[in-house]
């Protein structure tokens, strides 16, 4: 190819795949979601000179370079600092009752003797297995929970905007989900918030992994009105006349100064314990009544990961469209790093499942975002970056796949 | 000293080979007439239908070879279908002639109540000697009521003289092993019956060494 193809979002022109796992160099890093702009340039996962992604580099470090006994000691010190002695909650665990939060909350309570309050930012639309697992988390896992469901009218509109403007329907959800931990901590007078795995493990800059504390920028804001949802600022929503600032209460991030003053700290359990998502599955089945998805999850080969939201498959569909990688790539990359499958096996699975269209909840998704099928495809196609997609024989095909089956491979 | 295992495209012979090797024998898998006739011991394996088994033996021209070998009185053992084919006739898929080396017929295992006694008879079951002497036979040293692995729907009905052991299934005592001179038959699979089965394999090997 003599001419360089245009790459949307400022993504790297050349599509490369990690030599160790199956993730591509198009994978975006975590961002401060409520600042997401339309068409903004994405920061992506780093590949070193050997062509290995930072998540794999971090994983190698996890295996040999970290003294986990020491980290456990640090965890105990931390928890000792916050543990209550009067029966009040002493740690907030945000989560949906999926394997990661189920593990986190249960282990904090039953192994480390804390008194957690789990808080859930409701999925857009609960799947039945998701709801059952959530309930079991309490009924069998023996934990307390607050389920926070934001105003659906606003949430749907924000999701619709996020889909069409950013092709990132989950953006408003992620804003709320990140804020709820610290927000609930403030309300309940709890100072410690504990998440499970550090997202940095999946490819943010390595330095973020040496820090157990979540960057406050993710969940605090100086100026609420400038927060963007689906590429539209709160000010603009209010200005259009349908909503007032009251409606945005769930999304208004606590002020940084406030949090610092109250001494709220947000940590990742994944910094202190050697994390293995599949082992969280086993643990949660054994301890919190978790059940895997009865059927294979669309777009992947597994049944245990991210199964509680009907809209979830569409998040992965949009990563496939924008970055050329779908749910299977994410699942498989994680399992390669954690030594469950080989890279060859992962490539085979990605080839088999990554581009599977999520049919089961398609109609419900369209209804949720008040969009017709034509409008859906029109938006999708607008976001296909030329350096990732090519129209061949009337169909859109990936130029490059990890199994080297792309039209340009 | 060499033991030949007859190869006629039927059944899992690898386990039989392994079992004999495990017990120290020099074994080969063959359907070559000379190789068989020159062996110190011969094993006739087999799973599946009587008629298929006989057809296959016929196809490989082995029927006369086996008869010739057994005339020399050297040790010979039929396992499962291999035992059934030693007899005169079998009922599976219509009447089929067997090797006729031992008087008797092969019939379907009678079961009283198909709910509780299913077919095929797939299970570990006990060998009973009644008053039969096992010393000097392939069952020497095998404890009374030892469990062996059975999987079959048909059984042999020999003359009492030749019965070496009986086994009970569905309140019916069937013949689980036979002996006529140095010709033996085991309805069960000694190569699949754990350490008890290996005793039988070892006994057969010793017999071949002594001949």
């Amino acid at each position, binding site marked *: 190819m003599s001419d360089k193809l245009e790459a949307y979002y400022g993504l790297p022109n050349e599509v490369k795949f990690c030599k160790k796992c199956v993730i591509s160099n198009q994978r975006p890093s975590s961002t401060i979601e409520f600042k997401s702009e339309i068409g903004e340039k994405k920061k992506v996962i780093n590949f070193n000179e050997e062509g290995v992604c930072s998540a794999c580099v971090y994983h190698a470090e996890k295996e040999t370079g970290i003294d986990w006994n020491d980290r456990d000691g640090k965890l105990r010190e931390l928890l000792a600092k916050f543990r209550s002695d009067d029966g009040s909650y002493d740690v907030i665990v945000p989560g949906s009752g999926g394997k990661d939060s189920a593990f986190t909350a249960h282990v904090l309570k039953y192994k480390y003797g804390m008194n957690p309050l789990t808080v859930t930012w409701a999925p857009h639309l609960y799947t039945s297995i998701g709801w059952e697992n959530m309930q079991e988390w309490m009924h069998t896992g023996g934990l307390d929970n607050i389920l926070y469901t934001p105003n659906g009218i606003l949430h749907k509109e924000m999701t619709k905007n996020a889909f069409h403007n950013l092709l990132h329907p989950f953006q408003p959800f992620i804003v709320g989900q990140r804020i709820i931990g610290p927000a609930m901590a403030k309300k309940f007078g709890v100072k410690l918030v504990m998440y499970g795995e550090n997202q940095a493990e999946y490819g943010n800059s390595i330095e973020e992994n040496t820090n157990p504390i979540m960057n406050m920028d993710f969940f605090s804001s100086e100026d609420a009105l400038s927060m963007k949802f689906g590429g539209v600022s709160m000010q603009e929503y209010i200005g259009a006349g349908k909503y007032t600032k009251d409606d945005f209460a769930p999304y208004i991030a606590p002020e940084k100064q406030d949090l610092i003053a109250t001494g709220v700290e947000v940590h990742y359990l994944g910094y202190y314990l050697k994390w293995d998502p599949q082992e969280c599955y086993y643990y949660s089945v054994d301890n919190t009544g978790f059940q895997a998805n009865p059927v294979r999850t669309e777009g992947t080969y597994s049944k245990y990961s991210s199964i509680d939201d009907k809209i979830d498959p569409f998040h992965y569909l949009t990563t496939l469209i924008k970055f050329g990688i779908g749910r299977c790539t994410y699942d498989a990359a994680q399992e390669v790093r954690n030594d469950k499958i080989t890279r060859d096996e992962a490539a085979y699975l990605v080839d088999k499942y990554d581009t599977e269209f999520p049919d089961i909840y398609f109609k419900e998704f369209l209804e949720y975002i008040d969009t017709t099928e034509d409008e859906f495809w029109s938006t999708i196609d607008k976001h296909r970056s030329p350096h990732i997609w090519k129209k061949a024989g009337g169909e859109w095909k990936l130029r490059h796949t990890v199994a080297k089956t792309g039209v340009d491979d | 000293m060499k033991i030949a295992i007859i190869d006629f495209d039927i059944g899992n012979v690898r386990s039989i080979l392994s079992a004999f090797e495990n017990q120290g024998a020099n074994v080969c898998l063959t359907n070559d007439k000379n190789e068989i006739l020159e062996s110190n011991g011969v094993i006739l394996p087999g799973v599946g*239908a009587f008629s298929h088994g006989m057809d296959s033996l016929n196809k490989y021209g082995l029927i006369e070879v086996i008869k010739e070998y057994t005339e020399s009185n050297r040790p010979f053992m039929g396992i499962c279908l291999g035992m059934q084919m030693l007899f005169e006739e079998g009922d599976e898929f219509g009447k089929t002639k067997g090797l006729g080396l031992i008087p008797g017929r092969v019939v379907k295992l009678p079961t009283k109540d198909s709910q509780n006694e299913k077919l095929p008879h797939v299970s570990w079951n006990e060998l009973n000697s009644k008053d039969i002497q096992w010393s000097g036979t392939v069952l020497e040293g095998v404890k009374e009521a030892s469990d062996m692995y059975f999987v079959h729907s048909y059984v042999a009905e020999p003359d009492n003289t030749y019965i070496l052991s009986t086994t009970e299934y569905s309140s019916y005592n069937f013949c689980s092993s036979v002996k006529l001179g140095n010709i033996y038959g085991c309805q069960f699979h000694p190569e699949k019956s754990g350490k008890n089965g290996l005793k039988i394999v070892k006994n057969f090997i010793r017999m071949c060494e002594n001949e």
Partner: protein
Amino acid sequence: MNKIRVIARVDVKNEFVIKGIHLEGLRKVGNPNEMALDYYNNEIDEIIFMDAVAAYYDRNSLSELIRKACVNVFIPITVGGGIRTIDDIKNTLKSGADKVAINTKAVQDPDFISQSKKIFGSQCIVSSIEAKAIGGGKWEVYTDNGREPTGKDVIEWAKYVEELGAGEILLTSIDKEGTKKGFDVELYQSVASIVSIPIIASGGMGKSDDAVQLIKRANVDAIAIASVLHYKLESIQKIKDTLVRNQIKVRL
């Protein structure tokens, strides 16, 4: 009543034994040949090797493993996972297996069972059925290692595979397997009431009493156990002793 067979179910991925829950998860628990030999030495009655990822990778690859196992494990060996053609069966038996377990292919093409039975005999053909409870006393047949629903009713399917000529049924409860919370007794009661070929119950055993509860209430012929052995929750000896104490005959 037959002696109940106590069978070790060994799920294999490449060179490892793995153990999942609800047929999900690839946690490594040991080496297949070592574990098979260990169970054989401790008087297990039979071994079932299942290629746990045959469905993922559209392959089957246990031949080498079986060949090694046959060298020192002298009890019946059944092999399943990715058995799709007559050649697959031939090669598997040639490697040393006594029986093959077939699921996905049979659902896609039921005639495969009758063909296989004609060539190899019923005693070699085990119909493997993965059952998921769907309420109202019904179970649905799944394929591809518990991933794909088929819309078929387990009871009807079990009856059908018997007619087609399967010699035994390996019946796995997806809901219970790997949970160590006991067997789905109703499942086995329902299927046992309409088929007359042997049934191997698989999925859920966590302690000896689970087996007693099942066998006393459902007419099964064998139990296939995994977690309880792989995680060393109980020894084979203890399981058999418990069964005997409860008037259930086993090979000792």
